C-alpha cells in the first residue's frame, strides 16, 4: 500500500534555513545540509528546499547547498523559489533536484508548466499555490502570498493539472503559521477538482493535526510543515509512528542501530 508522506520544508536564504510566521518575521534556524541529513535519518519522506534568496550570490550559495545535500541524502528533493523559466528547471535539476516547484513563475507565465512537463515529465513539475479566502472565494495569491491575483484558486489548480503539473502543493495563507491545524475545507475543495497528488501546507501545530488531515481528506497524499519540525516541536520519527498506530499508511524506517550492525 502506498504511504502518506511527511515533508519538511526548508526555506533557505543566503545559505541558511529560515522560516517565517505568516510570511513575516523571518528568523534563522540552522545549516541546510545538516538539517537535511537529520531529517533523512528521522524518516522524512521527501525534502523541499525553497530558495528565498533575492541576490545572485545567494543563488550560488543555494545551488551549492543543493549539490552537497543531493550527494549524501538519498530521498526525493523538491526545489522551489525563483523558478521563472525552463532554464531554472535545468539549473536545479543539474544540482540533484528531482522535482521543481513553480508558483509565481507559473502565474506570470502559465505556459511554463506545459513547457517543463513536456521536457522533464509531469512527475518533475510541482505546482505550488498560496490560497486565501476573499469574499467567500478561494483566491490565488502571488509573490509569497502578498498579492491577490484575482484568480479563482480552484480553477487554477484544475488548469495546472491540465497543463501537466504532476503534484500540487496547497498552502493556506489563512492557516499558515497559526498552528491550529491544516485547512481541511480548502483542501477538500481543491481535492474535488484535481486527480494529482496533493501536498497540504499551512497550519500544522501538532501530531493530531496530521491525523485529522489524512483521515479527513483521503485525496491528500502528504503533509508539509517547517517550523514545528525545525524546532523539534513535532519530531518526525515520533509523528510517523503515531500516525501508523492510528492506521494511516506510513513508511517506518528501521532503527539506525540495526542499520549500522550489518553494514
Amino acid at each position, binding site marked *: 500500500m502506498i504511504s502518506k508522506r511527511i515533508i519538511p520544508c526548508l526555506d533557505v536564504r543566503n545559505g541558511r534555513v529560515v522560516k517565517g510566521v505568516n510570511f513575516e518575521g523571518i528568523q534563522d534556524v540552522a545549516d541546510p545540509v545538516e538539517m537535511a541529513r537529520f531529517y533523512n535519518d528521522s524518516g522524512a*519522506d521527501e525534502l523541499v528546499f525553497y530558495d528565498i534568496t533575492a541576490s545572485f550570490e545567494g543563488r550560488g550559495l543555494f545551488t551549492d547547498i543543493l549539490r552537497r545535500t543531493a550527494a*549524501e541524502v*538519498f530521498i526525493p528533493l523538491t526545489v522551489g523559489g525563483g523558478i521563472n523559466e525552463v532554464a531554472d528547471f535545468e539549473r536545479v535539476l543539474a544540482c540533484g533536484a528531482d522535482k521543481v516547484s513553480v508558483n509565481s513563475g507559473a502565474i506570470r507565465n502559465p505556459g511554463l508548466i506545459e513547457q517543463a512537463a513536456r521536457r522533464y515529465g509531469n512527475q518533475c513539475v510541482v505546482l505550488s499555490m498560496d490560497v486565501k479566502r476573499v469574499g467567500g472565494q478561494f483566491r490565488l495569491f502571488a509573490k509569497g502570498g502578498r498579492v491577490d491575483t484575482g484568480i479563482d484558486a480552484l480553477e487554477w489548480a484544475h488548469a495546472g493539472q491540465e497543463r501537466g503539473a504532476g503534484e500540487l502543493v496547497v498552502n493556506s495563507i489563512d492557516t499558515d503559521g497559526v498552528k491550529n491545524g491544516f485547512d481541511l475545507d480548502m483542501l477538500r475543495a481543491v481535492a474535488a477538482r484535481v486527480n494529482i497528488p496533493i501536498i497540504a501546507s499551512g497550519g500544522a501545530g501538532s501530531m493530531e493535526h496530521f491525523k485529522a488531515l489524512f483521515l479527513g481528506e483521503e485525496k491528500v497524499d502528504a503533509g508539509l510543515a517547517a517550523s514545528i519540525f525545525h524546532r523539534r516541536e513535532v519530531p518526525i520519527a515520533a509523528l510517523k509512528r503515531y500516525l501508523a498506530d492510528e492506521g494511516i499508511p506510513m513508511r517506518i*524506517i528501521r532503527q539506525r542501530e540495526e542499520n549500522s550492525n550489518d553494514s
Partner: protein
Amino acid sequence: MIAIIDYGVGNLYSLSHSLTHLGVENAVTSDRALIGAADKLILPGVGAFGDARKRLDDCGLTEVIVGRAHAGIPLLGICLGMQLLFEKSFEYGEHEGLNLIPGQVCPIQADLPRPLKVPHIGWNQLHIVRPCLLTRDIAEGDSVYYVHSYYAKNVGDCLMASSEYGVEVPGIVQKDNVYGAQFHPEKSGEIGLRILRAFAEGA
C-alpha cells in the same frame, strides 16, 4: 567499475553519488569502450519508452548493452531502464524492448480495479515474492520510492518483489544476470542503498 549508462535520459546525479557514497567506483558514461569494459552496467532512465529506445539506438549503445548482458555481465535497469529490458512496451504505440526479460510494459491506468492516481508516485511497500540478490539485505514490507505510469506484465518467474497499487506492480525482476527495479533505489533512502550495495557486491 560500474558504468552508469548516459544516453541523455534523466538525472544521473543521485545514482552516481549513491554508489560513491557506498564506496563503489562508478562512471556516468556514453562511451562504448568504457561500457564494454565495465564490470557491471546500470541502465537508468525517465521519460517515455519510445524516445528512450530511440536514443539508445542513436547513441549506438543498444548492441553493446545487449551483447554484454548476453555475455553474462550484471546489468541493472532502473525505472524506465528496467522497462527497456522487456520484450515490448505499449506506451504511445508499440515499441520493441531489449528482450532480455520476458514481459510487456503496459499502462497501469487501464488495469486499475478502482480509481487511483496515476502516476504511481510515492513510497510503497515491497512484498518479496522470491528472495534474490537484490532483496538480500532488505525485509518484507520495506518501502521504496516509485514514480511511474506504466508497469510490467506477464513476467512469470522473473518476478522477485512487488508492490500493491490496485494491481500487482513488479518492483524487482531478475533473469540470470539481468536485474530490474521499477522504483528508484537511489531515492529510496537506506533501503535503496542496501539494494544498490547488494548489486555492487554480489552480482
